[in-house]
């Protein structure tokens, strides 16, 4: 309903896309409701994109604004790129949920309210003097009032589940209602309930009853005679699943281990929004994955580095504050030239900042946040599903070039979902690099810093290999690995380390430009703004303007052709969820007058913002 539907016939109206936001108290199960609706839509065949919005780190008292949790899902009959700038439909389970979300609703959007929650107490908690569903303040919207709690309770009568427990099923009532309204299949949700609550028959029955009651209410009530149909999207054929970025990342790490033929060692200290990577990996002991919950981020980086020295794929994941703490250890990885994969799921900063919100403001820290000259490769993830491939690429570079690599994700990628065509695991690239097993120096000695002529990588000789005993360390060393403070040697080694990283440019793809013939303006993006930028660009094109677009996966080194490409455009716009970080790198590197389009609101870009900005400068 990006083009809002007119609601005037009894037939199912066909729309191309619709964004629905489920909002309620943290205790209302809105994440679950959204996920169920999403899955049903996925199985139905829509393309989709989701965005979860959790309350900040503390559980607020029920009914208050800080306690509001929401889940937005954008479904479409064509490929889409964002969870939607503005929801077309808002399901509000209580006054606080309404208040916290109403400003985002599309003009003339639909609101489905759970009227039972609009009592004096909840209205006060949300800070409403009068009830918005009575006082006419929602007249600009189409408001559908449903006493969901009462109806749920009634549906459950006789089921054995009563009182407060019965109320817990009201999220399924809401899902049922939406399932009817948007003509989703019932089976996926029913099956999910059946398998999830197989061991708790009461709850299973209750949720089923509530779900069906919601659906039936739609079918039988006048109020809901309008339904909408979003046809399946013509996605590339294949089998799909719906993933969050953190999930795809965890699986990508496991895949990287397989592709590199290395056991995976993941060390981490819990931190929002990166913790779910640890949680996911910890579940897979049967894959041989070792997870290590360290005492802090420094220890996590250290343990991962120790595992790398031992010949594992050492990975450590965190968010901004944790990356700051890991700096010194990353610097050691760089000096010892051991592969180490560092994942930063960026969040709003500085300091503790906005732990549950997204931002892209750690790029320059990734680039420069270490003492001394300490260049390392940086790879960025663009979408939830992309995390899978991106982490394999990061691991490839780390192992092949014996270097720490920073992989940048963010809270938006980590927690939102998109459909992902299951990868062909048989076709995973072989990113393995053989360990050193034989002496490489004169008289059967082993020189740990003798470099590969092409990659400049030093050999990886792991403990347990007879004859290759050697010592690594953080002091400057000469080519043999022995400590050296000689002036020339330090310069030589500094240049070698720098050159090794720079040289990777020859081993990564050139940037592809998605350009209209004759476009003079180029948008240069990175990371999670992929979807919003592409969607914005499409709109601009739809408006008949010409524009070019690049989205960077490799932020250090830049792809070899980047400078030349940039030189071909009159104006370069760099939208970033920070105050202009990539733009600084590009300006300094290529001396192009790239324009920063910064946003620091803890929220992803909207397609409309990119569109508007582009229209302004083209």
């Amino acid at each position, binding site marked *: 309903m990006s083009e809002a539907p007119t609601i005037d016939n009894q037939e199912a109206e066909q729309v191309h896309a619709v964004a629905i936001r489920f909002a309620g108290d943290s205790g209302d199960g809105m994440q679950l409701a959204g996920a169920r609706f999403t899955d049903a839509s996925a199985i139905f065949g829509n393309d989709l994109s989701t965005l979860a919005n959790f309350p900040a780190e503390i559980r607020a008292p029920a009914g208050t604004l800080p306690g509001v949790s929401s889940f937005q899902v954008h479904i479409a009959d064509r490929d889409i790129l964002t969870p939607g700038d503005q929801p077309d439909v808002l399901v509000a389970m209580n006054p606080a949920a309404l208040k916290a979300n109403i400003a985002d609703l599309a003009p003339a959007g639909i609101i489905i309210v759970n009227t039972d929650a609009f009592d004096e107490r909840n209205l006060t908690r949300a800070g409403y003097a009068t009830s918005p569903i009575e006082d006419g303040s929602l007249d600009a919207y189409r408001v559908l009032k449903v006493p969901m709690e009462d109806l749920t309770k009634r549906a459950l009568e006789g089921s054995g589940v009563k009182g407060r427990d019965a109320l817990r099923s009201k999220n399924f009532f809401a899902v049922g209602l939406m399932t009817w309204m948007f003509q989703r299949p019932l089976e996926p949700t029913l099956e999910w309930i059946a398998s999830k609550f197989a061991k708790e028959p009461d709850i299973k029955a209750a949720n089923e009853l509530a779900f069906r009651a919601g659906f039936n209410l739609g079918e039988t009530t006048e109020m809901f005679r309008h339904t909408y149909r979003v046809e399946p999207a013509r996605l590339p054929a294949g089998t799909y699943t719906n993933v969050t970025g953190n999930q795809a990342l965890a699986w990508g790490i496991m895949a990287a281990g397989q592709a590199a033929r290395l056991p995976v060692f993941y060390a981490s200290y819990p931190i929002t929004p990166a913790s779910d990577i640890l949680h996911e990996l910890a579940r897979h002991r049967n894959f041989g994955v070792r997870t290590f919950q360290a005492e802090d981020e420094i220890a996590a980086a*250290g343990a991962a580095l120790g595992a790398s020295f031992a010949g594992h794929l050492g990975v450590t994941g965190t968010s901004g504050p944790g990356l700051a703490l890991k700096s010194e250890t990353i610097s050691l990885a760089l000096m010892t030239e051991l592969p180490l994969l560092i994942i930063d799921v960026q969040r709003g900063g500085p300091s503790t900042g906005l732990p549950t919100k997204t931002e892209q403001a750690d790029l320059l820290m990734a680039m420069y946040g270490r003492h001394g000259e300490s260049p390392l490769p940086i790879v960025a993830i663009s979408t939830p599903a992309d995390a899978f491939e991106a982490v394999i690429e990061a691991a490839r570079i780390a192992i092949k070039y014996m270097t720490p690599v920073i992989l940048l994700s963010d809270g938006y990628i980590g927690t939102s979902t998109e459909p992902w065509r299951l990868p062909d695991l048989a076709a995973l690239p072989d990113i393995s690099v053989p360990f050193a097993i034989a002496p490489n120096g004169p008289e059967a000695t082993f020189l740990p810093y003798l470099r590969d002529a092409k990659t400049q990588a030093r050999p990886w000789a792991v403990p347990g290999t007879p004859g290759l005993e050697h010592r690594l360390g*953080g002091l400057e060393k000469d080519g043999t690995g022995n400590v050296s403070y000689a002036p020339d040697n330090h310069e030589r080694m500094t240049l070698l380390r720098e050159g090794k990283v720079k040289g990777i440019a020859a081993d990564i793809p050139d940037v592809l430009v998605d350009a209209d013939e004759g476009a003079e303006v180029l948008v240069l993006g990175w990371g999670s703004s992929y979807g919003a930028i592409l969607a914005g660009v499409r709109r601009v094109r739809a408006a008949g303007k010409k524009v070019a677009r690049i989205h960077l996966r490799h932020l250090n080194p830049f792809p070899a052709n980047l400078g030349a490409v940039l030189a071909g455009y009159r104006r370069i716009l760099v939208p970033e969820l920070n105050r202009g970080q990539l733009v600084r790198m590009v300006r300094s590197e290529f001396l192009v007058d790239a324009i920063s389009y910064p946003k620091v609101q803890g929220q992803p870009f909207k397609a409309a913002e990119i569109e508007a900005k582009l229209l302004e400068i083209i």
Partner: protein
Amino acid sequence: MTTEARYTRADFQTDQEVRWCPGCGDYTILASVQNFMADLGVDREKIVFVSGIGCAARFPYYMNTYGLHAIHGRAPAIASGLAVARPELSVWVVSGDGDSMSIGGNHLIHALRRNINLKILVFNNQIYGLTKGQYSPTSEMGKRTKSSPAGSIDFPFNPVSLALGAEATFVARTIDMDRTHTTEILKQAYQHRGSAFVEIYQNCNVFNDKAFAALTGKDERDQNRINLVHGEKVLFGPDRERGVIIDGGTARIVDVADAGIDAIHTHDATAPSAGPAYALSRLSHGPFGPTPVGVFRAVDRPVYEETLQQQIHDAQAKRGPGDLAELIASAGTWTVPDHDERELPAHS
């Protein structure tokens, strides 16, 4: 431990010139460790020495094994990753009192509580040697150093007490000069399954000379050194005329003649409770008087990486070795049938 004499000390020496100050206790410890390793006969390539930064932390450069001279304080964390990844290796941490108990204190106590199979040797010289003489977390109160010209006002740790407070399963103390004792302690540490914490009193003849004179000085050592021997009464003195009793949790020194030999505490390093070991550790805080050396505690507890290995084993037994394709599909999939595919931009 194998018994064949495959190695000699020379096999564990490297071509690096040893660069401690002449007279430094670190030389003696190096010799003890190299000899011990030769006798031990564990494959050289299976041994890894990990260190932080400090004079002591130079150690790996002088051991012809695998080694990592890491960053200040982080050796226990790095070694933990190494040992957990590769339980078949013999992983040794070498650290100074500053490295392990100042900047590295947190990693130390966590490695100990986890009981990861690390042998942690702390060369305690009660000073920062490498940075040229500031007081350390084990320096005595009132000590005048470059950073405490008016005398240190930091009450020091007692490393043995600290380790016991951190749930260590093996805690011992020895002295650089006494190579026989050092070797015996190294052997027991090696044999212990799990983390072994070994405090080695080490003389820094440049910045804190004679700090351990009470235990090494010709005149004093007989009076002050209390050898803890498992299963034996805790007696000391030139004629073993003094002894230790533990009374209501407090260890005290008595004349055997007064207290009677039966009252003297019999040392049991394997006692399930860490209480007696802790009580013994409180006898001296320095050491500036009678001070126990030996193995305070050596108890069994599951070893972190073994339990992890077991979890992997159990999970594989139950769920098979894991199929990634299956896992990825496990959250529910749907299939889009073949059709006239539009060109969709790939997610770059």
